[in-house]
């Protein structure tokens, strides 16, 4: 060391670069593995069950296999929806150990902003001339901005003053914020031309793309993916990459992680903890807002209460993945999305139509969730909770 101090320092620097690349890529690889893993495991279960049932109904096996690719695509889309919302819950929980129950409403507001922008564009006749991708870019950015700022404002007025209070107090405040936002948006929406059930006007995205055609006796079963779904997945993946880079490879991200691990010690390092917390809300809110826009875009309408169920499910996804863990939220979202897609497509088929899959999807998904949490209480990627000394 005495002879060549700089060599060892440079070594440390190189190690760091490798470490950063590893930390940005690792979550994405993990996510990809979970997508493939969920698809394979659930696919195999379907094949086995369909095979067992096919003795009584020979066509069932073929039909079950034929719709399998479509169900998987559906699962990925749902998964990314939950994943992007779940990130908002998990980031805030990571820093404050607090569940922001108003996050579903932040998501909903994003949807409304998108619908509002779409409506304005339609009014000035921009909708028909604007390239669809540019439209997506504008609405997503608008949704991210408004939702991000709204989440930050919520923290400032409803949570920060309660920072030192017992845990249940900010929780109640969050539930209150959730109701306030719902009805505020309802008031705004119904007093503007948007209306309660606002149509999400979009340019023409074109027909669904046929990926394959699976022959099924005399008929054939197409595997389709809509351009909107492709946009959804692409935007979600891009946001996840950006978030991973921000959190794992930048100075700000390090400050976020340090604040999450030990707030008062982070402030001793010169980190302005209040700023970091506001930033966490901004990022989580922006992601939720983007998810809201993309969701509205896919569904075609938005309403002031649409945030509740996806919010609860995304929260579930965050817990499933290990709350506080960013990669965990993404993974949890994907797993929950797959579970739902599989149950809603196959349940009625396998029970001979006795149970409608779509209405039992939630029950089935949540039952599996409970099972997973019984055996892994800290979630799929969660770390065992250790007592802070």
């Amino acid at each position, binding site marked *: 060391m005495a002879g060549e101090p700089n060599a060892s320092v440079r070594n*440390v620097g190189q*190690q760091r670069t490798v470490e950063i690349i590893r930390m940005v890529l690792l979550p994405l690889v993990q996510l990809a593995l979970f997508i493939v893993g969920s698809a394979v495991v659930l696919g195999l279960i379907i094949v086995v069950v369909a095979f067992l049932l096919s003795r009584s109904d020979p066509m069932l096996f073929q039909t079950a296999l034929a719709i399998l690719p479509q169900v998987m695509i559906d699962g990925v889309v749902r998964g990314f929806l939950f994943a992007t919302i779940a990130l908002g819950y998990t980031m805030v929980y990571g820093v404050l150990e607090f569940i922001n129950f108003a996050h579903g409403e932040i998501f909903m507001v994003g949807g409304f902003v998108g619908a509002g922008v779409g409506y304005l564009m339609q009014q000035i006749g921009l909708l028909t001339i604007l390239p669809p991708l540019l439209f997506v870019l504008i609405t997503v950015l608008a949704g991210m901005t408004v939702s991000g700022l709204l989440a930050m404002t919520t923290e400032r007025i409803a949570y920060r003053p309660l920072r030192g209070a017992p845990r249940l107090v900010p929780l109640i405040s969050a539930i209150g914020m959730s109701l306030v936002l719902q009805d505020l948006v309802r008031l705004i929406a119904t007093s503007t031309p948007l209306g309660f059930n606002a149509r999400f006007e979009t340019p023409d995205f074109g027909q669904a793309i046929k990926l394959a055609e699976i022959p099924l006796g005399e008929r054939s079963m197409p595997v389709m993916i809509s351009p909107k779904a492709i946009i959804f997945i692409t935007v979600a993946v891009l946001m996840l990459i950006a978030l991973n880079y921000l959190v794992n490879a930048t100075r700000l991200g390090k400050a976020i*992680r340090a604040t999450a691990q030990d707030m008062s*010690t982070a402030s001793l*390092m*010169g980190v302005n*903890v209040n700023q970091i917390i506001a930033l966490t809300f901004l990022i989580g809110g922006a992601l939720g807002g983007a998810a809201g826009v993309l969701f509205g875009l896919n569904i075609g309408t938005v309403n002031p209460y649409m945030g509740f169920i996806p919010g609860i499910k995304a929260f579930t996804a965050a817990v499933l993945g290990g709350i506080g863990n960013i990669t965990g939220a993404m993974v949890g979202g994907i797993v929950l999305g797959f579970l739902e897609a599989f149950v809603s497509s196959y349940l009625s088929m396998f029970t001979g139509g006795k149970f409608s899959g779509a209405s039992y999807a939630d029950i089935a998904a949540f039952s599996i969730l409970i099972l997973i949490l019984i055996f892994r209480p800290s979630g799929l990627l969660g770390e065992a909770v250790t007592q802070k000394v």
Partner: protein
Amino acid sequence: MALLELQNIHTYYGKIHALKGVSLTVNQGEIVTLIGANGAGKSTTLRTISGLLTPRTGEVRFKDQRIDKQPAHEIVKLGIAQSPEGRRIFPRLTVLENLEMGAYLHDTRSQSYWDDLERVFGLFPRLRERVAQKGGTLSGGEQQMLAIGRALMTRPQVLLLDEPSMGLAPVLVEQIFAIIQMINTQGMTVLLVEQNALQALNIAHRGYVLQSGEVVLADSAKALRENEAVQEKYLGLE
């Protein structure tokens, strides 16, 4: 002129009156130690200086500037660093990231950052071997080294050390204290809080004895070592 000065500080935890008029001074280049029993207010004093707690009345002055109303992240900019009680390493950050957090206010691409890092690794060679390891996987002694190293990375003029010997094997305690003394001879002013009063008084220039939130004795370290009341109560000598 005192580098750091506390005048009649009263600090509360809610309704609990933890510091009842503490006054003390730390001069440039000294090691000053605060000794006292559990709950005497030693850590509270350090936390009041570093800005984690705000005193209700009284003044904290650093280089003749009032700092008692400033938040912790501003105070560290002025040149006061604290190695907190219980070490408080960021458990899921690597050793290097922990040190980078220490240098949060500085440019980590500058040469002076690398010099700081090299200095910390010079003081604590064990940390160099563990750069890529997560902070939470280090042993107690290594965590203490990291906590001190991390505080040094902020480029302080005063280093506040809260119980650096807590929970460490006697050999390690010796080592840590030797390093504190070495850092001091290189020019660092140190305010040391210790339960291990004997060790603390051995390396300190001056000391204060705290009891239920009040300074009951203030003297040179040598005089305190020889004081019968101190010997009986804090040094375990009869």
